[in-house]
């Protein structure tokens, strides 16, 4: 029943996932339902990309554990998977670079499908990929969109957190699917930012009617206080955390006095 107008989409979520919660997983379900309901899109894949240790966020435990937990959490999903690339990088990687990396992966996968000789990729073709301003415009290659919460949209206006050209690339070249809560200011943020407004057609705001604020911060707090976190995270993740005693008062002090990597990077350059 699918018509040719339907665009294939891959959703990418970047974040700490420290640890992954049911709310993170729920965002993917909401986004897919919303995009497919428009009749214009078919969501074929979801990628969860936990940030690397170089991000230096307070209480951020080792990427290897966070990746493993996402792997366990997505075992029952037939479309959402974890990708360890970002988490395995020694230094913090800008989100724009992460998106570019995954888009290149999608292009490569499409090429290996198209071409018999997948080893030698012509320079000309590569040039086209970089030059073309449409994300997934060519037939077969899915569009790649960043899936995020309203907090990411709001963070665009935090000084030194994002490079302006990265925001333009993310919303202009790729696109954003943003889950917003009832009563959220997402629309106001979209209205107040000229960059976001210019690319509003590339920004999908998905309303979450059922507030479900399972924050990872709350989960870590409950864990280090010895309280139950069952049914807030998938059972295999709860088991993994308990077996390895991952979140404790000590682990919460990790990076306590360290400035977040993006703030370090951009505030130095800025001044």
């Amino acid at each position: 029943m699918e018509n040719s107008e339907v665009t294939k989409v891959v959703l990418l979520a970047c974040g700490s996932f420290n640890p992954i919660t049911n709310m993170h997983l729920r965002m993917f379900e909401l986004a897919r339902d919303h995009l497919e309901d428009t009749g214009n899109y078919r969501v074929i894949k979801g990628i969860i990309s936990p940030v690397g240790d170089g991000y230096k966020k307070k209480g951020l435990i080792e990427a290897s554990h966070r990746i493993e937990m996402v792997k366990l959490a997505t075992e029952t999903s037939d479309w959402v998977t974890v990708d360890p690339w970002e988490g395995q990088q020694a230094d913090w990687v800008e989100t724009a670079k992460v998106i570019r990396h995954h888009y290149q992966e999608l292009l490569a996968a499409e090429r290996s499908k198209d071409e018999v000789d997948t080893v030698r990729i012509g320079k000309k073709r590569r040039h086209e990929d970089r030059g073309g301003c449409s994300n997934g415009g060519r037939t077969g290659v899915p569009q790649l969109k960043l899936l995020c919460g309203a907090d990411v949209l709001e963070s665009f206006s935090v000084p030194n957190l994002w490079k302006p050209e990265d925001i333009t690339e993310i919303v202009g070249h790729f696109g954003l699917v943003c889950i917003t809560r009832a009563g959220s200011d997402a629309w106001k943020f979209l209205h107040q930012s000229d960059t976001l407004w210019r690319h509003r057609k590339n920004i999908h705001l998905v309303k979450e009617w059922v507030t479900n604020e399972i924050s990872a911060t709350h989960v870590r707090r409950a864990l280090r206080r010895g309280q139950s976190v069952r049914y807030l995270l998938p059972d295999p993740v709860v088991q993994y955390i308990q077996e390895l005693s991952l979140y404790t008062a000590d682990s919460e002090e990790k990076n306590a006095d360290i400035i977040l990597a993006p703030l370090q990077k951009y505030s130095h350059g800025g001044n």
Partner: protein
Amino acid sequence: MELTPGCTVFFKVIEFGSVSVRGTRNAVTQPKQRRKEAFICICRDHAVRDRMACRIPLVLLACGSFNPITLQHMRLFELARDHMHQTGQFQVVGGILSPVSDVYGKQGLAPARHRVAMARLALKSSDWVRVDDWESKQADWTETVVTMRHHYDQILKQPQNAAGAPQLKLLCGADFLDTFKVPGLWRADHVEEVAGQFGLVCVSRGSQQPDRAVHECDTLSRHRSNVFLVREWVRNEISATEVRRALRRGLSAKYLLPDAVIDYIRQHGLYTWESEQRNKGVVLRPLAQQGAPPETLAD
């Protein structure tokens, strides 16, 4: 410090939610170390036993439609258990989830056998909460106090250990507490029995004010030491109503309820536009009879 295998057996028994001993399972020790550690274990055993001996064993009972059961329902049990353990007075030894019978007459209420089956699937992985179908099989709706008496009788029939027979308390939401002040809904002696003899564990969220409900009801206020107020800090509005809405609209309900329940709903074609029309316009059985609500956990 590690524990000898003999010890862990004991610990496993009392492990039931006791945070301090979690993760000590499967402790394996070298034979050399055993004697020294056995001694430490005995000391520990006594300390724990002393601490537990003065704790009152407790069973939590929740009544509701569970139409269908959601992760939030199961979460309430976890929150209540943590809270009761933190009082230092209680040891939660079990939880009972009791789905209401079909005669309750609520709009969109799926047949009890399905609601019971779904709750069983959802709680399969729980080592302390179980489903009881007694209430769901009753020919008429059962008042909360009657359900409590039934389950307390069942508890008394079981062999008791040294700690004595467990207490039974009702696990409820803040909106259930509000029903106590609705004129004509509750019989005074029933409120007295539920709050005074049994007791309540009430989980509230958002802007709910369960302390106000206690304050505004003389009987609850008199027994306030037997009314335990638990705060849910996570804003979580997962409700069975929202789940049914998503299901009949063909939207995903994954991560709102266990996968096994979603599969069951799909297999039996349970929540549809048609099923939501069931009992439409029908007055709830307790309201028709001027009686107290049988649902302690709304939605």
